[in-house]
């Protein structure tokens, strides 16, 4: 038994590396066009700065559209940035994970988008700059079969355009 221990240790390390690679791979899906701008904060007031330094998305618990403390922090930063750079129009995309049915998830994505819209407006962002759209579970960013993945898909994304 004892002689096996190093092998287990090695395997555990290997599994950890594989997991990290898998998560990194599925959280960077090129087709979505977000999160792919590479390192660097971007010029002040640029879309890249919003994406990299402010953070363009918030995440939700399963079946929930309540804003977590982390989500509120992100939205506070978004609101401050959006209030400084008023030339952008804002699209809020609401999304759900795949562990629900199609039509309900379309409604859930809309409810999440609506919560984010209301929060940004409460922080002074002009409502007439904002539109929203729900994609339900039709546009996942993370693709695998585990909870860490699904949690990345339960999101609202703020697109500045």
């Amino acid at each position: 038994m004892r002689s096996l221990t190093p092998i287990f240790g090695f395997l555990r390390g290997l599994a950890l590396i594989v997991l990290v690679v898998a998560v990194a791979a599925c959280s960077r899906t090129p087709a979505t066009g977000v999160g792919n701008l590479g390192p660097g904060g971007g010029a002040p007031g640029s879309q890249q700065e919003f994406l990299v330094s402010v953070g363009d998305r918030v995440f939700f618990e399963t079946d929930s559209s309540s804003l977590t403390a982390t989500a509120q922090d992100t939205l506070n930063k978004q609101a401050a940035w959006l209030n400084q750079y008023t030339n952008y129009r804002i699209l809020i995309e609401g999304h759900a994970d795949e562990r629900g049915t199609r039509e309900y998830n379309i409604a859930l994505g809309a409810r999440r988008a609506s919560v984010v819209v209301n929060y940004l407006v409460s922080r002074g962002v002009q409502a007439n700059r904002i539109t929203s759209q729900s994609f339900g579970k039709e546009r996942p960013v993370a693709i695998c079969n585990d909870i860490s993945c699904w949690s990345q898909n339960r999101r609202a994304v703020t697109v500045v355009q």
Partner: protein
Amino acid sequence: MNLLTRRNALKLGLAGSALLATGSQALAQLQIIVEGANFQPLPIAIPDFASADPAFGAEIADIVRNNLRRSGLFVPLDPASLPSRVGDVQSTPDFATYRAANIDALVMGQVERGAQIQSSVRVWDTQQALQVVGRSYGTDAQAYRRVAHIISDAIYEALAGETGYFDSRVVYVSETGPKANRTKRLAIMDQDGANVQYITSGRSLVLTPRFSPTSQQLTYLNYESGNPQVYLLDLASGNQQRLGSFGQMSFAPRFSPDGRTVAFSVEQGGSTNIYALPIGASQPAQLTSGAAIDTGPSYSPDGSRIVFESDRGGNPQLYVMSASGGGAQRISYGQGSYSTPVWSPKGDNIAFTRMSGGQFQIGIMKPDGSGERVLVSSFHAEGPTWAPNGRVIMFFRDPGGDAGPQLHSVDIWGRNEQRIPTESFASDPAWSPLRT
């Protein structure tokens, strides 16, 4: 075992769910059938159809055999093992030969293809030396598979005592490309997977198609104009038009049984309620109100009631209300949440998707919520739709990850699950009524 016994057993099997309502004696009968202990599919002999083009005669017979086999109620015998390899509709069969081969049900067919398809079929009870079905059919040459489906329905109806469902079509969402950005198109096919036609281009995201009661129109969700809205599509012309522009978005459309009204969900400010719009009118009637998500409306076949899902009580559950709104009563009380209710065309059951314990299930219950039965349980199974005779359900399974959804069917006793072949990934099946 003689044919009458087998035929009666078959009829009893099909009537099983109706018997459920009549009391405990019937329940015991149903129990046996559901567990499959006493259920015996009926062996049936179908020689190749006689034809001036023997390959064509064999093809027609194959379509019939495959339909009956997939129903789970029949076991078509190997044609090579039969006393006669090719059908003969002109003469009375030598019943003694078939009885000696333990063949109780025999289908003799003939088909000729000219400018038109002409086909005759006779179904024999060899024990009773009795003709059960004798019919002739004619149709245009392009629709030759339909002849085989119509014959299959005649056999099914005569031997199983229920209307068939083979001469019907299925509309679904064909899915291709990477999961993060799938191309989704509406596609239509025969119920057995043949004759696939793609009816939208894939340029815009489309979901959740449903047939009108005449099968001439579809209603579905389309993202074409930015925010998703309900559309109508005329199948003959291919014309698509937006039903209207309601709220932030409108989705989850279904026709009423008379085809004159579409019920759907409208989302505004995060709340989703159910509306109904007579086609041609501009102002929909609001049927539910409140901050909850109310969606997935499905009419009872008499048009008087609507079953829908709502998370007004916390998580999604099923409710039944009047078709004009009001009086909503919750009907689902099992563990987990319930979604996508669909009223059976016979009115006797409501099919649904249930999520419980990290699994997805396809199930049915009575319209009052009693008699709940899980038919399929898996990692992800969703979106039931009823065959026109209310005895088979189609739905989609998704294994998750990079793979995609595929269509399956199962009968209402949870038996005989089958994959329906499609050339791409496929989801959101909706079964048409029987064709006319």
